[in-house]
Structures are given as C-alpha cells and as structure tokens.
C-alpha cells in the first residue's frame, strides 16, 4: 500500500511510502476524511518526506483533508517537506493553508501535543 495510516492515541499518522498516482491521492484524502469523522481524532500528521514532487493536485488534497479535519476540531500537520520541494512549491505559489508544517514526524507530533494543550504564547 502506498500510504500507511496508523492511529497513535488521538492522532492519525499517514505515511506516504512512494510517489502517488492521482487515484491514490484521492483515496488517502477520502480515507483520512472518513476516519476523522468516524473516530475521535484531535490531529492528523501527513508525512510526505518520501515525495520529491508535490504538485497542485497533492496540495489541493492536503487542503481538503485539513478543511474536513478542522470541521471536526482537529489540526492537520504536513511533515517532511524536502528543501527542493519547498522551493518548488513556493515558486509555484502553492499554498497549504490552513495546514501547518513541521520538519519531520517527531516535530509534527510535538506540535500537535502543544496545540492540543492550548499551546501558543506560553511565555518566554
């Protein structure tokens, strides 16, 4: 399977394992949307570290997942965008809002934890 979806506590972690066809992108999008509706999910991490291309189709699917998740009060974080891919996305003007980005899976989970506990403005 090209994307592995695991549940960790109240989070869903989707790990992309290989370059995806449009069909597979749609399937992942629908699966994540379904589960965030059916289960008690507080956050979704989509790990794209394997992808060396993120185009408008993938970006749109990511945004769709985030929008669905937001309706259920869940945050969506995309993790592992490679430097070259980030540059390409910016040149392309691909916008991922309202998704947040994290360097990798660990950072993404830490981010979700912080957000779940009402993070932001902890003071410094």
């Amino acid at each position: 399977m090209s994307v592995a979806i695991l549940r960790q506590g109240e989070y869903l972690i989707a790990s992309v394992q290989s370059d995806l066809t449009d069909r597979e992108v749609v399937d992942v999008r629908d699966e994540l949307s379904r589960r965030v509706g059916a289960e008690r999910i507080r956050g979704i991490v989509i790990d794209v570290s394997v992808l060396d291309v993120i185009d408008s189709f993938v970006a749109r699917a990511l945004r769709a997942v985030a929008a669905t998740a937001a309706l259920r009060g869940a945050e969506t974080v995309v993790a592992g965008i490679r430097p070259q891919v980030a540059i390409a996305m910016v040149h392309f003007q691909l916008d991922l809002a309202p998704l947040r980005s994290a360097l990798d899976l660990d950072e993404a989970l830490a981010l979700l934890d912080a957000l779940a506990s009402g993070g932001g403005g902890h003071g410094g």
Partner: protein
Amino acid sequence: MSEGARDTANVAGDVQGERQLLRELVAYLRNRREPLREEWARRITSEELLGVMTAEEVFDEVTAVYENYVDALETGSFEALQAYARNLSERIVPRGVETDEVLGVVLLLRDVLARALFEEYQGNPSKLNAILDAYEPAANRIAVTVSVSFVQERERVIRQQQESIRELSTPVLQVRDRLLILPIIGVLDSQRARQLTEQLLHAIQTSRAQVVVIDVTGVATIDVTVANHLVQTVEAARLMGANAIMTGLSSEIAQTLVDLDVDLGVMRTVGDLQGGLEEAERLIASWPGAPPTRDAEGTPAE
C-alpha cells in the same frame, strides 16, 4: 691616482670593474653574513615588524632571505629570488602579514647592508661610491621583486577566498539549539540568493531549526527579483516548519520593498540583529511550530 686618470681607467674597464666590484661586494656580504643578519633581525623586531611570527621563524626567514638576496646580487638573476619570495608569501599571507611589513623588512635589509658597506669602505670614498653604484640598483630591484611577489600572492589569496565564500562555504550559523542565523553581506544577486536559500533550507533540515534569523544589515540595496527571493526563502522555511525573522532592514531596503509592493505578510521584521535574536528566543520558548502560511493569528485562511 688623479681624478682624470681614474675616470679613464673606469671607462676602459667599466664592465670588468663593475663585475669585480660586485664580486667583492658579495664576498664581503657573505663574510659578514652573521653579524649583518643579526643586525637586520634586531631592527625588524625593534620596528615591530612581522609581529605574527615567532623569533625562531623570523630568524629562519632572515637567514634564507639573506642568502637569496646575496645570490641575486651575485648572479644578477632574480628568478630564484622570485620563486623564494612567492613561496615565502604563500606561507606568510595566511598568517596575516601585511604588505607594508614586507616592504619595511626588505628596505631594512637594504639599509643595514648599505650602512655596513659605508662603514667598511668609508676610508676609500671613490671605492665606496663605486660599490654603492653597483649595489643600489640591484638592491632596489630586489626590493621591488620581493614586494611585488608578496602583493600578487596576497591578491590571489583574497580572490580565492572571495570565490570560496561565494560558492563553497555555508554562511548559515548555528548559535544554539534550534536557532540559525543567516547573515547576508554584500551584493545579493539572483544566483547568490538561490544558493543562500538552498543552504539555509538544508541547514534547517540538518540542525532541526525552529527559528531562522535572516540579517540583511550588510546588504545595501536589493531589486525586486532579490526581494522576491527573500520572501520565497521565508515561505520555504515555513513549509519546513521553521519561522523566519528578518532583521537589519535599512530604511532604503524597507522603502524598496514597499515600493515594489512585495508581500511581507509572512515575514516578521525586527530592527536589529540583537532584537531579532531576542524575538527568536521568545518564539522558541513559546513554540508550537510555524503558524499557517497566511494568517499569523492561526485562523484558517480561505
């Protein structure tokens, strides 16, 4: 010998005479090498030249230069001296020896030797004049040869360093965990901006930075292409989970960005680097992560 007779004799045996004088000069300088070298080294120290070198190093160089010097006087060939001067320059330029020091040291030797010749031959003024006439042009040429070699080597090293700085070294600094600083200095063209972006993003990946401070204090002007590059760099950093703060924007650059209608919305700007670092610390302390692309407040953009 009368004045007239001496002149006639000199004209007749000029070349021969000069060669003979040079041989005598060279023999003298070789015989007296130790005390003259010492005198030279002593004056180098007292005039505080070659401060970056130890006493032993100065002694070794003085010994080698003296020999090369006298050889050049003897053979009239400067190739060996040139080669030595290049070799010497390669060694001392990286140590920070300045051009005026090298010039000073060479002129000191010329001075030390001239004085010694003066003392040696002062009892015979016509001979002294002849010896000095033979000595001076050669000594000047040696001074020029050594100095030019040094300057050329110095320029070569500077050019090489500039090239390295531009193409090889990463200017991204990690000052502490999670925080990177990218100081941008000098002229920023499109190609360099692209290079810096790639270097920064790779550094974010390697050091797992949460905040990047991009300091443009050292940048005088930027055009619209470069301004867009900077904005794109900030946006790309955010896609990798890092917040970017730009510091050191001069009022000229700030005005340029406003005039060019560059979207600074994604970028926090802080006056100076110090302030930027403090802001970075605050961000790291209150982490979680980079806010969504459009809205710093966290509410989803459309």
